[in-house]
Structures are given as C-alpha cells and as structure tokens.
C-alpha cells in the first residue's frame, strides 16, 4: 500500500514544494498536528510555528499564518509568510523577538492576537537556541 500523499506548499509568489511525502507536522491553530496518509478531509488554519515535512528529504519551514486543506490525500498549505527554516535563520531573529515582545505589551491587543504573538515568540526563541 502506498504510504505517501501529495503535499503542495504555495505562497503568493511561488510554489515552494509539490511532492509526495510521508508525513507533515503543522502548527495548527489549536495545537500541533501531524498529517499522515488517509487523514480525513480537514480544513484549518495555522498559528506561528514550524512545519516539518518528512518526504524525500527532511524540510522545515517557518510560518506565521496560513490555511491548510486536506482532501483526497492532497495536503494544500497556503501561506503568505512562509520561509524555509534555513533562510529564516539568516535573519536577525533576536531583533524580531524584541519587536514581537514590544507588540505584545500593547494594551489594545485582542486575546487572539496575544495568543498568536506569544506562539510566535516561543517559536522564535526555540529557533534561536
């Protein structure tokens, strides 16, 4: 039996990945989840985190937001803020953390925005270790 499914990671500028993979771990809005073959149809969206792709080679991406659809053994990830982790590490992460932290202290933030922001900081700290 075939153990892999199609993965399309698409940003507005280009198609980042379109290949067959074994499993994908995504930071879904309500918690991390791993998608395997024959998952039930699913639509969800993402919080800041890391997408781990286990395919012909291991790939990792940093996302801030995005939309995910799984149906007929095809996983589509749409995100306008997706970068591969290697490229992302070249940026000045500490600076982004500082910016995010200062945004988090603003008063007019909704609970949802706070939730997203704190996850962003957590993920960034993890990357920065």
């Amino acid at each position, binding site marked *: 039996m075939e153990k892999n499914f199609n993965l399309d990671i*698409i940003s507005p500028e280009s198609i980042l990945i379109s290949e067959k993979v074994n499993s994908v771990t995504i930071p879904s809005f309500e918690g991390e989840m791993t998608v395997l073959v024959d998952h039930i149809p699913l*639509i*969800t969206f993402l919080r800041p985190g890391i997408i781990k792709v286990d395919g012909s080679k291991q790939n990792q991406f940093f996302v801030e937001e995005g939309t995910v659809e799984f149906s007929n053994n095809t996983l589509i990830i*749409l995100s306008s803020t997706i970068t591969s982790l290697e490229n992302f590490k070249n940026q000045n992460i500490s600076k982004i953390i500082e910016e995010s932290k200062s945004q988090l202290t603003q008063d007019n933030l909704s609970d949802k925005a706070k939730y997203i922001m704190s996850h962003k900081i957590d993920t960034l700290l993890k990357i920065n270790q």
Partner: protein
Amino acid sequence: MPSLDDLRKRISSVKSTQKITKAMKMVAAAKLRKAQEMAEKGRPFSDKMDLIIQNLSKAINDPSNAPKLLVGTGEDKTHLCVVMTADRGLCGGFNTNICKLAKKYFDEAIKSSKNLKIITVGTKGLDQLKREYGQYIIKRITLKDKKKLSFLDAEEIGKQIVELFKNNEFDKCFIFYNKFKNVISQIPQQQQVIPAKIENKNKNDEEVSSYEFEPDEDEILDDLLPKNISTQIFKAFLENSASEQGSRMTAMDNATRNAGDLVDKLTINYNRSRQAAITKELIEIISGAESL
C-alpha cells in the same frame, strides 16, 4: 513648402524619438517577461484559496449567521469600486480601457441612485477620474515608490477595504483591473470581491459535508475571507503589471514603426525638394545664358 533645413531638423528629431521608443519597447519586453512569470506563479495560490472558500461556504448550514464578508450585508446601497491602474503613462490604451469600463459602471450606479465610493490605485487612473468623479473618491493609493510589488502591499489595501466594510461604509465591493490575456490583448475586468461569489456546484456535496473543521467553520472563515480579499487584490496587481508591460511593449512597437514610416516619408520629401532646388538653379543658369 518647408525649407531644406527644416526638413533635415525634423528628420533628425523623429529619428531620436524613434530611438527612445525602441529603447522603451525593449525595456518593457524585459519587464514583461518577469511580470508574466510572477503572474503565472501567483495563480495557484489564488486558485487554491478560491477552492477552499467554495468548499467552506458549502459547508455552512445557516446562511443568516455566516460572516457578512461572504454573504454580504443583505443590502445593495453603497458600492465601493477599487480602480487599479498604472503609475506611468505611455502604455497605449491600458489606463484608458480600465477607466472606460469603470466610468460606464459609475454612470449606471449613479443612475440607479446608488451611493458610490471610489478608491484609486495608481496615479494615472486618478488623473482620468478626478475631474468627473472627484467627489466620490475616498482614497488615493499610489505605489509609485515601490520597485517590486509584494503581497504585503496587497494585504495593506485589503485590510483597508475590510476595515471600511466593518464600519458599514459599503455593501458591495468591486475591483477593476486589466486581465493579461497575451501580449497584444488585455481585457479590462470588473470583479466582485465582497460579498464573495459562490458558485453553485452540487456534484461534490456529499464529499464536502465530511470535512473536519478545526476550530469551527465560522472562525476559519473569519480568518480566511480577509486573506482572500488580499489575494484577489494581489492577483489583480500581478495581472495588471503584466498587462501594463505588454500594453506598453505593443504601443512602443507601433510608435517605433510609425516613426520609421515618417522618416521614410520625410526623406523622400527632402530629396525631392533638394532635386527641385538644383533643377531650378540649372534652369536659371540656362535661361540666363540663352538671353545673352
């Protein structure tokens, strides 16, 4: 009859114009290739986004509670029109075509006594619309200082539109842009973005209902719909910039050819009048000699 000197000057001026148009054509051709590539790369994103929204909207059981961005406010009073044009001229009928389509729609909307609000993107469209429809324009956006369009720019505009919608400033939103068909033909388009258009296809109904949503449909839609608007605007940006370059390339190609024709005509004129002057002088000499 212009003098020989005048003709010579005209020929050289037309020739230098030709050089400029030729250079512009080549620049446009190079930019077109890039813009076309970007437009093609951007298509899957908006297509997939559309697909997901179609699937989601079918799964909504209770339309009265659905987000207003999807189903509309239920009224049809105020129309917001986003007219997207270029920031530069010399690109044939590109800007004029969009404005023509937009004006036609504006007139209809005014006739049927609807409130009209206009956002212009790009300065050329603003120039053409501000005289007649100046009082309706609520925002002027220019992207002149941006070298490369990014999704963030589109998102910025999308956010402004959603903000206006949430403040109940309008009921329906349309964007006007040129769709890139090929180098010589660009089709001005009018597209409705709010409320989102839902196609009624029933064939996949059973499959759709089995989707698992996490969190629930409404929250996903709340997140997705503003993104969809930004995506549509970004798509329009890309199509527009490809169209602009294509249109400019064709316009400049025509201009170069016209200048070539003009130079040929002027050169014939020049040669004829030179010959005429020589003949005249000869006749004068001969008749002078005969009279002696």
